């Protein structure tokens, strides 16, 4: 009897110690893991509010005009509804917006690329944009017609960023070793990045038009591969609280997710107040976003912004 109980007690002690040991090891392992992941991801952030105070009206205007954004929207005939919506809504706020289509469409003007392949479309569009506009714009924003963008927030995000540096930003994702900007959230290139991209396009080994692989990479990944060769790396764009500003989902979808995951803090958990893009919008939703962003607001709330943007001419929905 005594030997049994003493064995039991000994067993208990060993079991207890073993449990503590396993728990400790588990905690250390997890902590190490998250830290490592955090370091490898590149982030760039929007400017702080303190950076942008004490400017006169003239200085604000000048600063606002110094950020010139050229918008490329890649379209196909099947996107006609979305194309129309983009044309009537947010693209009016780009300094210049042009639609690059796979083939000629009677209803709308576009730059015809004569190809159905998304990667080839992207290459041609970037090439043309650089050739024609390298002296007129310093930032190049590429989007799909299912994306809604707030160009004013893009310009605020780019404030104090030197376009002669190689910026390549948006909603950044890691796929194995490759970090790339998800095309669904919109892709931003500085003039320097676009310059380097144009050069590497000439290199059929590093940046071929037709991928030599059996399984093709999506065009946004191919872009990342080509840019990487020129020393341009993708960076994730975030606001001053670390929230993504380029979103690959719609507001509605993100709200629904927040209602499930953070029901006590739905709006805080959803999206950035300075969000730049949302994706997956139906044409009608673009009109609602236009109203919700550019018009609907509560009376009596003012902001001291460093930049000034005037509403575009000949428009009644903003």
């Amino acid at each position: 009897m005594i030997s049994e109980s003493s064995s039991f007690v000994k067993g208990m002690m060993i079991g207890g110690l073993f449990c503590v040991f396993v728990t400790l090891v588990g905690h250390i392992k997890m902590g190490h893991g998250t830290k490592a992941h955090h370091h490898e991801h590149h982030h760039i952030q929007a400017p702080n509010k303190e950076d942008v105070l004490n400017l006169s009206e003239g200085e604000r205007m000048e600063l606002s005009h110094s950020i010139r954004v050229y918008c490329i929207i890649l379209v196909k005939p099947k996107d006609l509804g979305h194309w129309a919506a983009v044309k009537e809504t947010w693209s009016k706020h780009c300094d210049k917006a042009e639609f690059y289509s796979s083939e000629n469409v009677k209803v709308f003007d576009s730059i015809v690329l004569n190809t159905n392949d998304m990667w080839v479309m992207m290459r041609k569009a970037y090439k043309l944009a650089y050739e024609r506009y390298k002296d007129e714009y310093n930032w190049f924003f590429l989007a799909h017609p299912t994306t809604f963008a707030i160009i004013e927030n893009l310009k605020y995000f780019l404030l104090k960023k030197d376009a002669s540096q190689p910026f390549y930003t948006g909603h950044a994702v890691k796929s194995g070793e490759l970090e790339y900007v998800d095309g669904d959230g919109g892709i931003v290139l500085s003039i320097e990045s676009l310059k380097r991209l144009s050069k590497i396009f000439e290199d059929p080994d590093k940046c071929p038009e037709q991928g030599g692989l059996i399984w093709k990479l999506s065009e946004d990944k191919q872009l990342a591969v080509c840019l990487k060769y020129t020393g341009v790396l993708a960076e994730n764009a975030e606001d001053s609280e670390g929230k993504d500003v380029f979103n690959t989902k719609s507001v509605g979808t993100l709200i629904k997710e927040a209602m499930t995951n953070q029901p006590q803090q739905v709006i805080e958990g959803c999206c950035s107040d300075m969000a730049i893009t949302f994706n997956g919008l139906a044409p009608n939703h673009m009109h609602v976003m236009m109203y919700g962003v550019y018009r609907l607001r509560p009376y009596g709330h003012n902001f001291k912004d460093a930049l000034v943007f005037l509403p575009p001419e000949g428009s009644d929905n903003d």
Partner: protein
Amino acid sequence: MALGLFKSSWLAFHVGIMAGFACTFYLLNGLHQPAPQEPESPAPRPAGDSFWVIQHPALLSSGHPHLSGEDSAVAAELFHKVRILCWVMTGPSNLETKARHVQATWARHCNVVLFMSSVRDDGFPAVGLDTKEGRDQLYWKTIRAFQYVHQHHLAQADWFLKADDDTFVVLDNLRWLLANHTPQEPVYFGKRFKPFAKQGYMSGGAGYVLSQEALRRFVEGFRTQACSHTTSVEDLALGQCMEKMGVRAGDSRDPAGRETFHPFVPESHLTGKFSKSFWYWNYCYYPIVEGPRCCSDLAISFHYVSPELMYTLEFLTYHLRPYGYRYRFQPPLPENAARLPLHREQPRAAEERANATLPGGAGALPQIIPLGESKPRVIPLHSEGMLGDTTASYAAALPWIIPLCGKQELSNGV
């Protein structure tokens, strides 16, 4: 014998290991994890309850919500000058599925909010109006709700808003509309419909707001039986009572002529093409405008709003904005706003919180007023003056007190 002993020791040893492991495991987990958060805690609290000051069953705003880094002085001033009590028409089966999301979003911008149900709910909290549920009960609920508000909260607000649990309201814009009027005016505002009443009536779903005087007259109408439960069509019946009691149906359109109260969701008004046979065409008091001009920048309400859209609209209205953008429509504050008294009384947070937790505690429980038994009041029906009423005389005196208490500045434009 020896073998038997050996076996049981061996067994005991291994059982001991497992027992020790299990005990330690539970011990460690118990220490590491915080007290588990049960969705249904013993004393359920309203959503984001650290925000509310609970004056059971009413919820008082602890301050008008705004973003850090913004200059919301004008909105703050209106918050204290145009006090709005919101009551939300809901029911027991809708509390968690709909009313909860109202509580988490636009209701926070009210000065006082009450959730009106047929059954009392101390946790939500919701007032029990002692009616049944159903479309045919809507006017009964409305009558009792206004009587309740009149009995318990008349002095706490200048304007009294009725909304459904699927109505989305932008209170700051409502304050801007009402700043051009005084609570002593017998007037009410909403989405104006034309049939069945000479001066029209206000759509129930899009929400409507009564001045303090209009509320008095409504309650008085039922006391004297000038008004009664004529039909269960709540908005029409209320409109007819208003007309009878000399309360004017106001024009809620903005200075550019655009509607502010909307009976549908933004998508319908902005992009929908209502078919010509749709009833809406015959109901609208003012001409319907489709497309972007349907809706004012300073919209006040939308209806048939799902919970998801509730949060989406709150986000689009109060959070997401285009940086540096100079809005096209920037109307000034109405001149009348300067003449409105500033009500700085803030609920004393600690005391109210102490009263809040226990039903049956010091905080007054709602008392249902049977129809026709409100407090006797002599109200001259066509009075536009400010005398003969303690609240009104207090309000009249305030403009003289304010310069002594602090400065108030009005800034023009948004």
